């Protein structure tokens, strides 16, 4: 047991070290959120502003949690690429032949992905005052916990896919195929109320909708944004997280 915890820690530590060492990743990690927020966010809110009223400002508030969600989904799912990367560069063998369980490898990877995702999320939170969104200490803690839970689920999902992938190209193809619909159907860019039936159905089966809904509620404290009760949101994300990590552990444990 202690051995497994230690294994988790070592796997986690290496990924974190690598992230902060690779300056290009670090810089894009910081720059990307601001691009999305200021270019996409500002562009869209002025589009809404054209229709008159308070639409523009209102939309900027609305889309901010959505873009936070976008950062989380990208970082988490793509952090699992490190498994494919390690396989391609041989380091995975060093890990697989070590006397630690496969389960601790998966958990270590899931935690490192979540940590990196949280790191990016926190960078994003620094922009909140610029949008005149007031966040107090407890809100920030709640948001961070939601980010961690969501990232853990998504990274596990990424690992599940990565553990059967042999090439980087294959992984990227599948990931793009998954990320785009998942993001667009999450309610990140539009409210989840009064949608056409078919769209509402798709949005409801997307676990990411529930976490963006929850983050948005905590952040803006405005019930008009809440599509589901908070308890339901948290339960759905938790069930998704447990399912994904279990599946990832199971698949990763299969030896040829």
């Amino acid at each position, binding site marked *: 047991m202690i*051995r497994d915890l*230690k*294994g988790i820690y*070592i796997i986690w530590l*290496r990924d974190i*070290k*690598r992230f902060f*060492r*690779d300056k290009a990743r670090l810089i894009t990690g910081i720059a990307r959120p601001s691009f999305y927020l200021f270019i996409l966010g500002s562009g869209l809110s002025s589009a809404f502003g054209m229709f008159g009223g308070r639409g523009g400002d209102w939309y900027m508030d609305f889309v901010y949690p959505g873009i936070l969600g976008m950062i989380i989904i990208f970082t988490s799912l793509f952090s699992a690429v490190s498994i494919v990367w390690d396989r391609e*560069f*041989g*380091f995975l*063998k*060093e*890990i*697989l*032949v*070590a*006397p*630690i*369980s496969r389960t601790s490898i998966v958990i270590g990877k899931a935690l490192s992905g979540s940590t990196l995702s949280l790191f990016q999320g926190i960078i994003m939170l620094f922009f909140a005052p610029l949008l005149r969104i007031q966040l107090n200490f407890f809100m920030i803690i709640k948001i961070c916990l939601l980010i961690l839970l969501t990232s853990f689920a998504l990274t596990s999902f990424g690992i599940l896919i990565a553990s059967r992938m042999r090439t980087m190209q294959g992984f990227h193809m599948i990931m793009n195929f998954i990320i785009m619909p998942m993001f667009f159907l999450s309610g990140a860019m539009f409210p989840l109320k009064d949608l056409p039936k078919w769209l509402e159905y798709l949005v409801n089966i997307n676990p990411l909708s529930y976490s963006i809904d929850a983050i948005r509620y905590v952040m803006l404290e405005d019930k008009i944004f809440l599509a589901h009760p908070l308890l339901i949101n948290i339960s759905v994300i938790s069930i998704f997280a447990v399912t994904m990590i279990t599946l990832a552990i199971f698949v990763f444990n299969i*030896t*040829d």
Partner: protein
Amino acid sequence: MPIERGKLSVIISVEKLTKKFKNLIAVNQISFEVHEGEIFGFLGPNGAGKTTTINMICTLLSPTSGKAVLNGHNITKERNQVRQCIGLVFQDPSLDDWLTAKENLEFHALIYNIKRKTAKKRIDQILEIVELKDRKNDLVLNFSGGMKRRLEIARGLIHYPKVLFLDEPTLGLDPQTRNKVWEYIKDLKERENITIFLTTHYMDEAENCDRISIIDMGKIIAIDTPENLKKKVMGDIITVETTDNKSLSKEIENKYGKNVFFYDNKIQFEVDDSERFIPQFIRESKEDILSISARKPTLDDVFLSLTGKKIRDESASTMDGMRKMIRVRRMRR
């Protein structure tokens, strides 16, 4: 060898180990034993099943059938115990380029549950042996192929393994570096008192081993010391070239009762005493002899006489070339 068994303790014993992939039997019912403290070599062409066998013993692959025990631990039932007492150097590079030499070793020490204090001393000691101490804080990214290989050997030794597996340890290295790597291997065997299990397709390297197992098409075809294997090829090897190889080969087979092999437009066969044989042979030969030479047998000849073919040098060298290209690409990244 039942007499020897009393003297030497067996560290790896393999019984009827088999690995089948979809429609290919990579390893076919092989059985052998490795003694404690020896350098044991697996010699065979590419695709003979060497790496598959190692991967099974190292718990990376599950055998289809058969059994193997390493240092008293069953390879399918006690994976973690087996993993704890082996060190591995893979055929392809397996270092983290974005960590420094020292960090790669620290990662290894931690994951093998070595106490930090012990690990620190051990890392310094081992880096000294492989002469990388002054580069320990450099990123592996900037290392040459030979340095990486040395670091990998060092890494495989950190946790005081009982057996060190080296899968083609000198593949893709230049001759000088190859010799250097061999010096380290022999030196380590003495210092650390460990068993070394290696694979190679280079005949000259196999001669460094205490015992060799020759493997081809997933089967072991011979297992013995290099000297004894060479004795299986009686006497000396004669290589002759004439204007008409076919008729000469018939002549040799009928008159002297020797088996001949053809290769490179030359005839090759074994005789007991080449010094006396050659003058007589030249006198009595009906064909014009263009060239003739005699030499002591090498393991190449053993392989040839056991399997009827040479170790496939050609395919080996193109594979080498490909690997080198891949390595160059990796280094650039």
